């Protein structure tokens, strides 16, 4: 590679953009100008927190992926017990899904209200989000109780073990989200909008939407495919 090319290519082997520097040509003050290659210095706090939470969500989705994989492997292992078509109820499923999807929408509305600094509306939408989440959770608990009462508990077969674990893990996340939302509402009421609290609200919204996405996966893989046989 010629010297001229080396000048043009900032990342030539073993030499960065300041390659000429080592040759004693010296550098002007333009070293630090943003190049679009991640040289702009530390990101603002909000970006850092949001990015970190995204990374956490990705890891959480991999956790779910493990349970999805187990469900896919074990979904045919009924051990002589009941299968999806005898167990899943479409009406409850529709209600659950509607409650959760609408709660994602209201969670978005809460985010918009928080962005405008409207306390009452933020609290109101958060409350609606939480209530819809509670409806979802209540329906899921009812479903689990019905199954167990029918003798189709997680101990019955590998299919039911995988089903209860996957759907239950999602339910556990929803429960944690409810606790989180409640705590946030109390904190918001006492302390008002502060940067740290706004960042937490942003993370909560990300969390809640991610759970929605996971539910879409469960809805499809577990319930739709199960009912389709």
């Amino acid at each position, binding site marked *: 590679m010629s010297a001229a090319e080396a000048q043009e290519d900032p*990342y030539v*082997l*073993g*030499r*960065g*953009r*300041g*390659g000429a*520097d*080592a040759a*004693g040509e*010296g*550098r002007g003050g333009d*070293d*630090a100008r943003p*190049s679009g*290659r*991640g*040289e*702009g*210095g*530390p*990101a603002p706090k909000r*970006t*850092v927190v949001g*990015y*970190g939470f995204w*990374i*956490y969500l*990705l*890891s*959480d989705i*991999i*956790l779910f*992926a*493990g*349970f999805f*994989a*187990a469900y896919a*492997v*074990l979904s045919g*292992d*009924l*051990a002589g017990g009941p299968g999806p078509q005898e167990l899943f109820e479409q009406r409850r499923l529709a209600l659950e899904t509607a409650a959760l999807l609408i709660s994602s929408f209201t969670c978005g509305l809460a985010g918009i209200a928080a962005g405008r600094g409207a306390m009452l509306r933020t609290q109101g939408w958060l409350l609606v989000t939480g209530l819809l989440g509670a409806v979802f959770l209540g329906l899921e608990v009812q479903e689990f109780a019905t199954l167990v009462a029918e003798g189709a508990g*997680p*101990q*019955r*077969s*590998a*299919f039911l*073990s*995988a089903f*209860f*674990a996957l759907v239950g893990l999602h339910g556990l996340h929803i429960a944690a989200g409810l*606790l989180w939302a409640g*705590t946030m509402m109390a*904190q918001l009421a006492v*302390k008002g909008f502060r940067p740290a609290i706004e960042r*937490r609200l942003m993370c909560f919204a990300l969390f809640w939407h991610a759970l929605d996405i996971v539910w879409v996966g469960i809805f499809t893989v577990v319930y739709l495919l199960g009912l389709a046989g």
Partner: protein
Amino acid sequence: MSVLGKLDWSAIPIDQPIPLAAGGGAIALMLAALGWVTVKGHWPYLWREWITSVDHKRIGVMYVVLALAMLVRGFIDAIMMRTHQALTVGGGSGYLPPEHFNQIFSAHGTIMIFFGAMPFMVGLMNFVVPLQLGVRDVAFPRLNSTAFWLTASGALLVNLSLVLGEFARTGWLPYAPLSERSYSPGVGVDYYLWAVQIGGVGTLMAGINIVTTIVKTRAPGMGYLRMPMFCWTALCASMLIVAAFPILTATLTMLTLDRYLGFHFFTNAAGGSPMMFVNLIWAWGHPEVYILILPAFGVFSEVIATFSGKPLFGYRSMVAATLFITVVSFMVWLHHFFTMGAGANVNAAFGIATSIIAVGTGVKIYNWLFTMYGGRLRFPTPMLWSLGFLFTFIIGGMTGVLLAVPAADFILHNSLFLVAHFHNVIVSGTVFGAIAGYTFWFPKAFGFTLDERWGKRAFWLSLAGFVIVFGALYIAGLEGMTRRLQHVAVAQWGPLLYVSVAGVAVMIAGVAAQITQLVVSIRRRDALRDDTGDPWEGRSLEWATPSPPPAFNFATLPEVGGEEPYWRIKERAIASQQERSASDYEPITMPRRSATGFVTAFFATVIGFAMVWQIWWLAALGLVCAYGAFVAFAWRDENEDTFSAEEVARIERARRGAAA
């Protein structure tokens, strides 16, 4: 069931002298340490400056201290296994009954991987990465502290099993269905599950933190392709943590559900699939070995470039090789169980993938060799460890390629050849890298170098012992000796086992020399003092700040104009015959110390312990208290401290003044 669940007096192994004595000794040692701290009145200092510290440098040091202690603990297990086996040759009965021997090899692997090697690597990343990136802290300092204390909590639970109950007898990966309640009714597997889960959550937090730190908080001008190699390997290892550890969490959760609630994930009955456990655990387990080795590769890259007096050869190909390994590490897991019977085509595909991943490592080996070629070589202790790595790791890598051939693997599977192979890569890769990093960055952390004489003794003894031990085991494996034998019935393996015991004796001398080095260095710290902050003629930014660095690392954030920024600064200073001009200091805001991590880990330990012994009320109480603590910490208004510009200037002058 009583109020203490399954816990009663029979949990204390009165009838087993070895664990009792070991546990008693450990407790006596801890009590002595705690008593000494109390008598000397060091508690306020320890609490303020270390336990509640959110400074990434302090947390990094605590990780390394934990790792060193656990490496010694795991090494003692290894000594017991080697000597016991040698004593059973020719009809002897040794000194470890089978159920105890099984616990020891399980504890050895668990402790070495999860609480020795991993914390060492995470500790080095924690300490070095922000300094190399030229920033003041990690992205999430309190999360960092929590991650460390959760790891410590896991280590505590494992060691608690020594005196209360038992540890798993299932190997370091509790293969189902052996690990199910029906075959392992005791608390051993439960200790394993809760300890590794709690430690694993800590590791995941550390991974998220380091990824975010590297991607979002680099100094101005520090583009991706200007990052030091160690930052690259830290980034890749942390991405692997984020992508792989949730699989471990999921797998162990499934096993926990099987054991506690009668689920059927991995049971023989009701449609469970034991082979799914093996697949899932290795889907985490293979990336895990690269989580261990990649940061070590980073250490070697820094050390070899520094002591060759040259930039790293083929920097960009090194980055590419690291990323290649990161991706391909997820595509080879099946080579851990070629004998499962997945069929010739599946085995061939994974065998080829396994051979291909060695290409990435080969690229690195050549890059290190060419970095040294034509360099002005120096051979202090970190460089010796790196060279020892180069020589021995190549052997380990090549036996790995042998094992990647499914037909050969059918014969060598579960043999001592395999055991020798993975010790060959993990010890000469990760452990040598850890010790190289420890001696390399020790002066940065404490302001004085480690004693070279004892360091070199430790290196040569450890290297010799290591080659003798595992050389003998390679041959024993080729002669057909399988792993985990409590009793050795074949007399002709005897000589090889005696040789490996001799090697262990040399390694003990090596470890002793390593400990002596630390003691001697602390005593001679005034003679070994390094006032320059740059004892090795370093090339990256961690050497640009005084040793030990101030809480805020850099009084003014460095502006990075290319690769090897500190080398540039020095060259410019020499060219212009001027040190850099006095800077205008600005106030610096740093996170305030916080007990969040310690308190969280305390409750995690309580929950883990209660779940092991099935003390349900205590587990519930721990959960409620953990939530309470979480809210209390989230409620605080002030969690940052600000150094005024004058303070910054004063601290900086005092430290720079020491150098002048």
